[in-house]
């Protein structure tokens, strides 16, 4: 029970900011910015402290009983910390980005308030120590994201918001049902106590399988598994920072993270394997990966293409989990981080193009590399990473997925990987081609749809630096994968914990 304050403080950094932001007047730009950035920095620091402590072998726990048998539990394990680290890092980057992006737009107070709430929920999800706490923050995330999705307030945004709520609330309801049923069976489900369900014996296997499927259905909505993915491409109407966060760490990742928790910490990988559910997961992941890629190929606009790409990429995580063996686990977990870094970069860049040049369609990107070189470099790094080319982080994920596929004796998964890489190349390389090799408005051919000069550099510094930073991180995470505290190192650390009894 040492240092229970640390996880709580981490949550509080973003949670306590919320009422303060809401109480500030709309015009208090400086105070709000300072507050947001300060809190984000503080959180990165706190998470870094916890990572350090965890490597030293310390444990952090905080709990109180709500009603008898139902505990609120915060418990810091390596897996949760990985997610918390990703969330805090990207929160910082996205806050900077959002400040630049929303300059001079109305309702910034509301935006940043819910933004902080959204991040607070992801931290809660990351640090939750039992299924109940997880569910609590999972639902909070659903609700706090809604105002962000509909932020623009026009009919299309409201429509997307409704679709979003329709999907996620239904999913949440299904998940709730599964959680309650599990609660009835074994009481409070603390993460990491895997023998709890395994001890039930073979009689319970049928019921456990059904419950697993129910919870998977609930979590699969947020993780955008096909065919539950319908809300994600439509949620694209949200402002760029929201999409970035939504795709990289908040909603979609929360679903994927939930599936990771479900497999490793609730059922335990051994039991899941016994129940034959891993094969099912692998099949679902395969379908999602291929379907997402094919759909992405058909998109003419940048953000929807990225959205379908997310659907496909997030399922790499699920595929990794479904490959029984340490390599598969490493692959799934490391991709949880890598995909976040790369996708957030891509969305920042898409936002930059839209803000600076008014570009939404892919065919308007001709020659944009000349007008906005830094943004385009960042985009290139992200796109190459998505394809899985070294030295960007995506390659490391793919490598471990391949190793895991062989280890799990599912060689066919390599075919899926290669096919998906080719499809990724097919929908990202044309974009890069347009950016760098075609002549466009900056060569005197045609005009940008809506050019603005937002800053001294190619666009506002608030918009460029986050993109550059996350691109650099994506590059570093791959290039220096063998360095301590790299995502790969963390994932290996987590995996060692999962597979040693």
């Amino acid at each position, binding site marked *: 029970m040492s240092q229970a304050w640390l996880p709580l403080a981490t949550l509080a950094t973003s949670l306590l900011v919320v009422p303060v932001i809401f109480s500030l007047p709309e015009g208090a730009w400086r105070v709000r910015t300072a507050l947001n950035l300060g809190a984000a920095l503080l959180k990165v620091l706190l998470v870094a402290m916890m990572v350090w402590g965890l490597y030293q072998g310390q444990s952090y726990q905080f709990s109180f009983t709500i009603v008898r048998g139902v505990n609120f539990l915060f418990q810091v394990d390596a897996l949760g910390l990985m997610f918390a680290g990703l969330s805090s890092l990207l929160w910082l980057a996205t806050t900077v980005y959002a400040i630049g992006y929303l300059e001079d737009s109305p309702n910034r107070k509301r935006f940043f308030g819910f933004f902080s709430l959204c991040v607070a929920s992801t931290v809660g999800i990351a640090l939750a120590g039992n299924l109940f706490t997880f569910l609590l923050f999972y639902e909070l995330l659903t609700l706090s994201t809604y105002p962000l999705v509909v932020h623009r307030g026009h009919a299309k945004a409201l429509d997307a918001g409704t679709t979003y709520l329709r999907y996620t609330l239904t999913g949440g309801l299904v998940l709730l049902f599964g959680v309650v049923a599990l609660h009835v069976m074994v009481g409070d489900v603390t993460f990491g106590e895997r023998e709890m369900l395994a001890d039930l014996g073979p009689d319970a296997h049928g019921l456990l399988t059904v419950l697993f499927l129910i919870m998977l259905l609930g979590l699969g909505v947020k993780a955008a598994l096909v065919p539950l993915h319908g809300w994600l491409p439509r949620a694209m109407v949200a402002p760029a920072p929201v999409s970035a966060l939504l795709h990289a760490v908040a909603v979609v990742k929360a679903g994927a993270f939930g599936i990771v928790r479900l497999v490793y910490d609730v059922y335990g990988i051994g039991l899941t394997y016994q129940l034959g559910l891993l094969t099912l997961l692998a099949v679902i992941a395969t379908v999602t990966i291929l379907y997402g890629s094919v759909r992405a190929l058909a998109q003419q606009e940048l953000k929807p293409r990225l959205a379908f790409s997310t659907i496909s990429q997030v399922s790499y995580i699920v595929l990794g989990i479904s490959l029984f063996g340490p390599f598969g686990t490493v692959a799934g977990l490391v991709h949880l981080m890598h995909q976040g870094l790369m996708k957030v970069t891509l969305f920042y860049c898409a936002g930059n193009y839209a803000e600076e040049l008014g570009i939404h369609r892919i065919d308007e990107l001709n020659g944009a590399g000349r007008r906005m070189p830094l943004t385009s470099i960042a985009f290139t790094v992200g796109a190459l990473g998505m394809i899985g080319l070294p030295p960007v982080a995506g390659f490391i994920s*793919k490598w471990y997925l*391949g*190793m895991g596929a*062989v280890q799990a004796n599912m060689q066919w998964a*390599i075919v899926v990987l290669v096919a998906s890489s080719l499809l990724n190349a097919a929908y990202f390389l044309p974009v890069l081609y347009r950016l760098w*090799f075609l002549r466009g408005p900056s060569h005197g051919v045609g005009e940008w749809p809506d050019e603005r000069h937002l800053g001294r550099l190619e666009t506002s510094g608030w918009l460029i630096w986050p993109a550059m930073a996350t691109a650099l991180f994506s590059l570093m995470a791959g290039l*220096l994968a*063998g360095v301590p505290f790299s995502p790969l190192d963390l994932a290996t650390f987590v995996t060692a914990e999962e597979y040693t009894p």
Partner: protein
Amino acid sequence: MMASLLLGLTLLWPLLLMLRNPLWLVMEHGALQRPGPRPMLLDAWWVTAPVPALLLTLWPGEVQLQMQGWLLGAQWQLDDTRRPWLLFSAMLWALAGLYARGYLVTEQQAAESGDGDAFRRLLGFAMLWPLTLVGNLLLILAEDIPSFYLGFALMTFAAYGLVVHAGNRDAHLGGRAYLIMAVLGEGMILGGLLWAAGTVQVLTLTELRAGLATAEQGAWMATLLWLGFGVKAGVIGLHVWLPLAHPVAPTPASAVLSGVMIKAGLIGWLNTLPLGADGLETLGAVVIVLGLAAALGAAGYGVSQRHPKAVLAYSSVSQMGMITALVGAGMAAPVLWPALLVAVTLFAVHHGLTKGALFLGVGISEHPPRLPAWLLWVLLALPALSLAGVMTSGLATKWAFKELLYEGGYATLVAWLSVAAVGTTLLMFRALWRQWQERGVYSIPIASSMPLAWLACVVAAVSVPLWIPLAGEHPNWPPLDEWPGLLWPASLGLVLAGLVALVTLRANRSWQFAKRLMPGDLWWGYLRLVRQALAWLHGLGLALEQRGSRWRSRLLEWESRATALASGLTRFERTFRRLAVPLMVGVAVLLLMGFWLG
């Protein structure tokens, strides 16, 4: 320690040279928008990019560099098998770089005098050239699989920018063919590497080869890897990008593409396939046949080409086909392999430099230096004759493998290779003929970088057997009584070429059918197939989309029906209110009755 540093510098130096220009741009922000002079992009420093690599090859003994943190643990090394590859690659890169300074001088001048467009195009060239070089060097030096794959991918994708440098329609077409085939190849390589490395659980290439030799499905993994690297090496059927991309690139880039980078596929084979081990006999037979098919087919198709660089590109396919056949012989007869490896290395180095010299020569014949015409054309013909196997390094190379194959009982293969040599002679004749017809007027001084680089390349190419470090082995010159057997293909080729030329001149008409044979041969067929497949897929996608939307609308309909039901509940409200009084009365009556009865 010093040596390891030098190895690191080998890769770092070109990178630094690459980053120099963007750093300048960042420091002088807005410099691009300002009119006025620009810095020289292809300056003397830029040419020095491969110099550390050259120095490294001179370092005696093995050199190693290990870095735990790099990717999954880097292990780069220079040993006796890698040395000839590194040496000739660095050499050709250096010479081509020097040549590029002269070749792009007009663009350079335009850029310096303030033409923004030219400046940016040249900037791309100046940056991508060293980057491609880094990839090439890394793939030679890497011993761990991820670094090797990194080098390969880096080289492949950075070279795209070199291919499309000209920016015209042909360049983009060539670039597209290059990129599509390269991506397909990368996919197969990735699949093969993952499958193989996952099965044998290793991270280094040496262990991978050893593991593949004994792995259960090793032959299939080897096939996949062979195909993947075969895209780069121009295996027939996968070679279609070569004649499209090599001619459109700027001449120095064509030289390194056709001389060095095409060898990356071969290096990939040597690095990953369990050559010299049993188990690949079937694949070996197929490889021999495919190699010979490429050697002969490309020669046959290549002579119909008009552009000298396209002819040379087909010659590259043909020569790589011969090397492929030799590799196939090594697979089919593992005992031959250690000796064959030496012959293959010699062949690759000979072809690399000679083809480099030939490509550089195309630029020279377009902008001839001030030399007597006979001397110029003798020098231009020298590497061509060498490639045909008439003299110098070509003769030594031919003898090296011929001797071996005869001893191994592969007389038929030798006969076919000789036929292919006839084809090579025809191709060389055709290339020189076209160069002669498209020759330029005298313009540049002999002491400028372009002719000097070309001359150095010619000298290096014809003297390959004298300096190539082949790990103790030394290439032999053939004994005099073997010369007729080695020279007849070239002589036959010359006679044939002479006859055809005579007939053409006499008849004074061009061959109509040959004009229809576009460079890229099978590419156009592939294109049609893919278009059909895409159209079919598009239809499928539409159908699926329709079904999806039908489902969604049905769900929505259900939902609206449910909401309608829910809002209909208010009707009951009124009924309830009306019923309230009777209900109360009823309950009261019931209670009273209860009391009364109780």
